[in-house]
């Protein structure tokens, strides 16, 4: 357990989380804490539950039929699975970027403005300044400022993914969940996304799922290794990659399985 007297209060703390798809259990007794303004990476082989776990943090699994959860997820001081929690408000605080870039078939401007509009911002100049700020934060502004009204589907894959990041930032989240955000991109676009993660962590708490261990080592401060629905090891990235405590972690990061 993390000693609260010596450390800053974690942004997210998860306690004994079990998760089920119908009758099959996908996550077993996960307990861990994620620090504010840090990057936490989830690694592990396919099907280990890392994406499922990520999706419990903004309750995206609620949208899948017959899923069931036990345990608590605290963000700041709120249990996000408490009955009185407003999921809409939660997802405003916890943004998400998906593996496959998924811009809407609308203009670049409308993509970024989608979230703010839903949350009640109508004023055109307010919307414009949010769009500009979000695109700047996502490192896309200079590339698209002259063609905000063009269809977002005309952007390159890397640009589309940064647009999705800008879209997520536009609702003003505190936490950003990223589900293998660069796995479908070429190395140059991947490098841009990784640089961006480094910039964004000044303002946001970032949690990233990746199957690329070099990426986890490059971008994250903390790393959690999952295997078959269990959290095997969690610690500072440097420690996980240089002196893992668990045999399984070592086997995985040295490429003995995966």
């Amino acid at each position, binding site marked *: 357990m993390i000693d609260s007297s010596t450390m800053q209060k974690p942004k997210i703390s998860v306690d004994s989380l079990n998760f089920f798809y119908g009758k099959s259990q996908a996550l077993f007794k996960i307990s861990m804490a994620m620090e504010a303004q840090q990057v936490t990476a989830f690694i592990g082989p396919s099907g280990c539950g890392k994406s499922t776990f990520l999706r419990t943090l903004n309750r*995206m699994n609620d949208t899948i039929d017959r899923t069931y959860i036990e345990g608590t997820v605290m963000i700041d001081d709120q249990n996000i699975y408490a009955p009185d929690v407003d999921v809409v408000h939660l997802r405003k605080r916890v*943004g998400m970027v998906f593996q496959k870039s*998924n811009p809407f078939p609308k203009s670049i401007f409308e993509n970024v403005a989608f979230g703010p509009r839903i949350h009640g911002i109508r004023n055109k100049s307010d919307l414009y300044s949010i769009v500009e700020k979000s695109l700047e934060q996502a490192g896309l502004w200079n590339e698209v400022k002259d063609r905000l009204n063009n269809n977002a589907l005309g952007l390159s894959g890397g640009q589309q993914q940064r647009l*999705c990041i800008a879209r*997520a930032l536009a609702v003003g989240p505190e936490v950003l969940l990223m589900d293998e955000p660069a796995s479908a991109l070429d190395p140059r676009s991947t490098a841009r996304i990784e640089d961006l993660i480094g910039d964004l962590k000044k303002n946001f708490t970032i949690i990233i799922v990746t199957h690329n261990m070099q990426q986890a080592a490059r971008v994250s401060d903390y790393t959690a290794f999952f295997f078959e629905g269990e959290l095997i090891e969690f610690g500072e990235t440097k420690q996980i990659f240089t002196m893992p405590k668990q045999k399984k972690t070592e086997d995985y990061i040295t490429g003995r399985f995966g």
Partner: protein
Amino acid sequence: MKPGRRIFGTGFVFITQASAFLIIGLVIFIFLTIIHGGWNTLSLEFIFSSPKNGMTEGGIFPAIAGTFMLVFIMTILGVPVGTITAVFLCEYVKKSSPVAKIIRFAVNTLAGIPSIVFGLFGLGFFIQFVGRNMDKVLSPPGELIWGQPSLIWAGLTMALLTLPTVIIVVEEAITSVPREWREASLALGATKWETIIRVVLPNSITGILTGTILAVSRGAGEVAPILFTGVAYFLPYIPTRVTDQFMQLGYHIYVMATQSTNVEKTLGIQYATTLVLLLLTFILNFIAIIIRYQLRKKRIA
């Protein structure tokens, strides 16, 4: 290879080609016959004037107007209901749930009912039951305003008839909206309702239009459902209220061909009316295709 097999192969190719050409030939034959028979009668005056002399002369404007009104009422009643039903089926019930199965069964059954049965249902339910009871409440004593065949009841009956088509086509369109877009919307804090209104329906618009076109093309040509529910043999005027009766092109053709005082004399009118009905259907389809094409281009551009 045995020679017999080659002969069968060649023979089969011949049969497939022959049946393809037969269909093309039939279409051309039908068109040429109609155009040949109706071209001399067809004129602007024919389109914009009323029948005269016991419908042996004059134009068909009341029938054209009636057809448009009927299709309009049918569309504004049927397409929204069909779309909402499709949304319910796709977004609010699980595919395998009993509710979904019952609705699908009902939709498929509805699609298989002969159109004359819809007409009888319209007469029995809408006119005799709903209309008569509305008269008891709304109309002066002894007067029949709602409880008789009229545009509104014919439109409703047609809407019912085309409902399954609309539901099935719109459902397909909604299902084809990628899950990733819904997830993106939900993850931004949109509710399910907002996601449907802002993401799912705008991206199903081509499907909704296709459903509308199919309904309209069918509605413009069907006669059986309106026989008992509102169509008139002859009206010298254009309906102005939803409780008025109306003339309709398909029924007008039937009347001219079988009930006319002088079938020989009206042959030209019959052909020309048929030509107008066909052109109307084509124009409607053509407009819809252009709208769809424009929408698609806008999405990709």
